[in-house]
């Protein structure tokens, strides 16, 4: 038994326990500043432990928990995303005052713990428990603003549809168990290989995949995304759009390319169709939106479509392109939601109209939003372009011309709605002229994110090496 492999999880769990006991002992009077200090220390230790573990693959708990370079890649990804979200939620909640933020951080950290376990799962029981830790935390976070009707409604919708997806997944696991007699990935893969045409196995694979497609908001399981994105607090949407989606894709990759490998033929029929529907739905839905969070909800559906192309294409080029795209998407989305959480309390509205003249009120925030939105749209020197280029060329290399064509035709549509926000910021007259002050730490983190977007656009090979390194076991 190798307990040191779980070092990041131990650290995350320890941080969680410290937070819980601090909250119990101090009661509602507890000051938030020391809470964030504990969390930031926790994140730093987490990253440090991952750095030491990066070259020592292995498994624990009888092979149900694996730590390979793929898992380490995603754990670093989640920790960094959680760090940015923690800082941004600090700026989001500070002016609101009335909300208790200590519990918010605690539940956010719980979601991170779930994600850390999720990417290491090598057994369907661990997978389900970790997935539920993550999703249940997100239900609570979505409905966190108790006084805000939109937040509660988003919470109810996410809870009902999310539980439905969980029920699908666990029913699929139950069917797998009846046929294979184990929940371990390796024995289930052996069962699939032995009886590839077994109806119950096909049904269970379909149920589990549809549950995961819900998590990444792929059409036809996307209905929750726009409502939840509109209603939930901004930092939660940031973590949902980056963390939850990445976790869903990590699981999809692991399942499709290890457990469900006997269904490679079905994969090549199913995923191109899903990807095409998702790209079309997301981009067309976003065109008419007036609310920026709802627009980003549809845009995240569209990006799920591009990421699904990575699963539809051949394994070698597709997976590398998928991870690259995920990185660029995460950088841009984190930057956008960071700006939104800084402006939310000043503008007091999520409507795109409220962003009129932001360039005059805060040139820095407007410029950051400008670069991040253009990167999402895939404008050349930026990171998003490289991601889209890799994804589309993977599709073309796998003779999915029609899919690549849909992906290319959707880019001008996405430019239209992203440029709508940019036009509002730069070309229209502001409603209020008071300038928005940006704290120094916010400037630093936002600056780093924007630098990341620019660097990942100009220098592809270092990022590509990270991605290749993550995929070396596949």
């Amino acid at each position, binding site marked *: 038994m190798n307990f040191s492999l779980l070092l990041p999880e131990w650290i995350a769990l320890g941080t969680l326990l410290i937070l819980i006991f601090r909250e119990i002992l101090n009661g509602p009077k507890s000051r938030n500043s020391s809470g964030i200090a504990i969390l930031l220390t926790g994140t730093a230790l987490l990253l440090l432990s991952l750095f030491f573990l990066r070259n020592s693959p292995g498994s624990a708990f009888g092979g149900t928990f694996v730590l390979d370079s793929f898992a380490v890649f995603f754990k670093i990804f989640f920790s960094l995303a959680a760090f940015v979200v923690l800082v941004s939620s600090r700026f989001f909640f500070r002016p609101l005052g009335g909300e208790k933020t200590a519990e918010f951080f605690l539940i956010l950290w719980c979601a991170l713990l779930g994600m850390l376990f999720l990417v290491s799962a090598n057994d369907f*029981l661990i997978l*389900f*428990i970790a997935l*539920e830790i993550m999703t*249940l935390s997100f*239900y*609570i976070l979505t*409905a966190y603003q*108790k*006084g805000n*009707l*939109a937040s*509660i*409604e*988003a*919470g*109810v*919708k996410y*809870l*009902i549809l999310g*539980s*439905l997806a*969980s*029920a699908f997944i*666990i*029913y699929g*696991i*139950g*069917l797998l*168990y*009846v046929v294979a*007699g*184990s*929940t371990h990935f390796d024995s289930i893969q052996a069962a699939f290989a032995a009886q590839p045409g077994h109806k*119950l196995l096909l049904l269970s694979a379909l149920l589990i995949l549809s549950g995961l497609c819900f998590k990444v908001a792929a059409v036809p399981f996307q209905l929750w995304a*726009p*409502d939840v994105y*509109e*209603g939930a607090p901004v930092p939660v949407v940031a973590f949902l759009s980056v963390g939850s989606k990445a976790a869903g894709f990590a699981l999809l990759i692991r399942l499709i390319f290890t457990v469900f490998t006997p269904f490679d033929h079905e994969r090549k029929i199913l995923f191109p169709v899903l990807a095409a529907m998702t790209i079309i739905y997301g981009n067309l839905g976003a065109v*008419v*939106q*007036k*609310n920026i969070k*709802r627009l980003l909800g549809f845009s995240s559906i569209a990006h799920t479509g591009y990421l699904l192309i990575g699963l539809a294409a051949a394994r070698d080029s597709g997976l590398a392109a998928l991870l690259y795209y995920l990185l660029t998407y995460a950088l841009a989305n984190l930057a956008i939601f960071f700006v939104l959480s800084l402006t939310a309390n000043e503008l007091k509205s999520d409507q795109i109209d409220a962003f009129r003249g932001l360039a005059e009120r805060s040139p820095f925030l407007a410029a950051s939003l400008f670069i991040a939105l253009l990167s999402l749209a895939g404008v050349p020197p930026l990171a998003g372009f490289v991601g889209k280029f890799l994804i589309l060329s993977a599709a073309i290399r796998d003779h999915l011309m029609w899919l690549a064509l849909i992906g290319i035709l959707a880019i001008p549509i996405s430019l239209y709605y992203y440029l709508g926000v940019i036009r509002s910021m730069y070309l229209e007259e502001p409603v209020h002229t008071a300038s928005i002050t940006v704290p120094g730490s916010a400037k630093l983190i936002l600056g780093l994110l924007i630098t990341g977007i620019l660097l990942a656009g100009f220098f592809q090979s270092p990022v590509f090496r990270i991605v290749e390194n993550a995929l070396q076991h596949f």
Partner: protein
Amino acid sequence: MIPIGHVLIVSGILFSIGLAGLLIRRNILLILLSIELMMNAANLLLIAGSALHGEADGQITAFFVMVIAAVEVTVGLAVAVLLFRTRQTVDTYDIKWLKG
């Protein structure tokens, strides 16, 4: 021993009743109940599989699923109470604030 085919049919029926209830019912409490039913259909499968293969891990998994289902309902009821406090309703037809 009960043949596995029978268990599959019963659990399939339970799952379908749960799914139908979730789609038809408009009261959040009944929707939560339907979700519970779907999870219990999965539990039935896990326990039947455990008996079929003579291994205990299916039953252990079922315990974990029960715990998770309980947590799910707890969170669901908390959100339903929150909704009732602000809108005095738990009918899903009345929650149509977010759309577009």
